């Protein structure tokens, strides 16, 4: 499990990028040699130092979902204001940065739309700074941007946010560690077992190969499922660039007939 030489202190920032790169490459080589397809992140991914003491060491225990696990909490218009999907109008002025629309569909593994369900996002501002006390990165706070949004999916499972492109930011995993620009997404499906939180990334980010959180999804095809596509049909004339990103939740355990009710 943990090697005695690995520093588990999250803020130690002791390792160099080169040594993190070597760890990432070693894990990838082992993965390629093993010939098994992984679709989820490794919970135990030592290059992401904070995972060392926070990953279960035992296999997940199989459970047939029962009771409340077969349905999801219900959210509705009472929970979400109509303007909460526009992160650029929440704080008394226009935020700085590349205005963009991010949209896509939330589907289950059988391709059914997840309708009228809550989608929550949060992100850094264009300078790579979060409105959070613990984020002391010396980049400017934008007084017009909180970086928090919510919406409900529509009848087709479509969500849509207007926001600004987040900047990359440094963190203390290792020396000179920078996160690729990303937006956090929180999702509920039609069953509580589909509950998930993930991060959406932007195409072509030069930081991908260096980032142990992104690389913790060892399979390159699985990783790419987190990268949005630039979509010129979503882009709006003289207003905003557009990105499309579809999200697939795990399959439903109910029969199709029950699910359609």
């Amino acid at each position: 499990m943990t090697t005695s030489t690995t520093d588990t202190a999250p803020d130690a920032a002791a390792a160099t990028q080169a040594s993190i790169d070597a760890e990432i490459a070693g894990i990838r080589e082992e993965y390629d040699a093993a010939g098994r397809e992984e679709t989820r992140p490794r919970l135990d991914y030592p290059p992401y130092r904070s995972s060392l003491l926070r990953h279960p060491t035992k296999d997940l225990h199989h459970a047939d979902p029962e009771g409340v696990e077969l349905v999801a909490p219900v959210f509705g218009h009472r929970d979400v204001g109509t303007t909460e999907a526009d992160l650029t109008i929440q704080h008394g002025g226009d935020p700085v940065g590349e205005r963009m629309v991010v949209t896509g569909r939330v589907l289950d593994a059988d391709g059914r739309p997840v309708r009228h369900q809550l989608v929550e996002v949060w992100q850094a501002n264009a300078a790579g700074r979060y409105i959070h006390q613990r984020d002391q990165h010396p980049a400017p706070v934008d007084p017009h941007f909180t970086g928090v949004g919510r919406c409900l999916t529509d009848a087709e499972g479509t969500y849509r946010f207007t926001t600004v492109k987040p900047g990359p930011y440094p963190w203390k995993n290792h020396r000179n560690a920078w996160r690729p620009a990303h937006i956090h997404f929180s999702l509920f499906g039609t069953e509580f077992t589909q509950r998930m939180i993930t991060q959406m990334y932007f195409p072509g980010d030069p930081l991908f190969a260096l980032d142990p959180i992104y690389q913790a999804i060892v399979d390159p095809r699985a990783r790419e499922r987190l990268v949005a596509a630039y979509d010129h049909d979503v882009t709006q004339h003289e207003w905003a660039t557009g990105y499309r990103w579809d999200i697939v939740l795990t399959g439903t355990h109910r029969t199709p007939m029950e699910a359609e009710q």
Partner: protein
Amino acid sequence: MSDPTSPRVATPGQTIGPFFGYALPVEGGEQLVPAQHPGAVRLRGTVYDGHGDPVPDALVEIWQADADGRTPTAEGSLRRDPFEFTGFGRTPVDPAGRYTFTTVAPGATAPGRAPFVAMTVFARGLLDRLLTRVYLPLDEAVLAADPFLAGVPEDRRHTLVATRDEHGFVFDVRLQGEDETVFLSHGSPA
């Protein structure tokens, strides 16, 4: 991409990171019922890492049936009305890794099954969410007869059952180590 019949591969999860604190927690998210509710119980615990140290940046969610075993269908889990039981709770842990919910003990949703509170755990350093169940120590015979609990190795079963103290129920989450919590997978059996 638009073929509705082909199974798709699920989008991978990622860590919640450290900076969710201004985004996900909602006012009253830890109160499923008001403390004055006649059936109110406290469900609390601490999230621990593999060294037994508290995790200060975790988020815990619960989802449960009401006292009669009915699954809630009411909106309002974010904008709360204290008279409406929505069954959903969400709270960040405090700097000492502790969470507290005020709720009711759930009723059984099916005959012969022990009632439980479904729980999700998110944390910085945890690359994907974890799901578990909190069984309450209300009836030893019901717990002993529950088919799911019976299938959990005996030496780990206790990690799914809360304990009682003078303030209610205590359920600690151990992400790793000696008494590591049993976390669940709902996909095909491995």
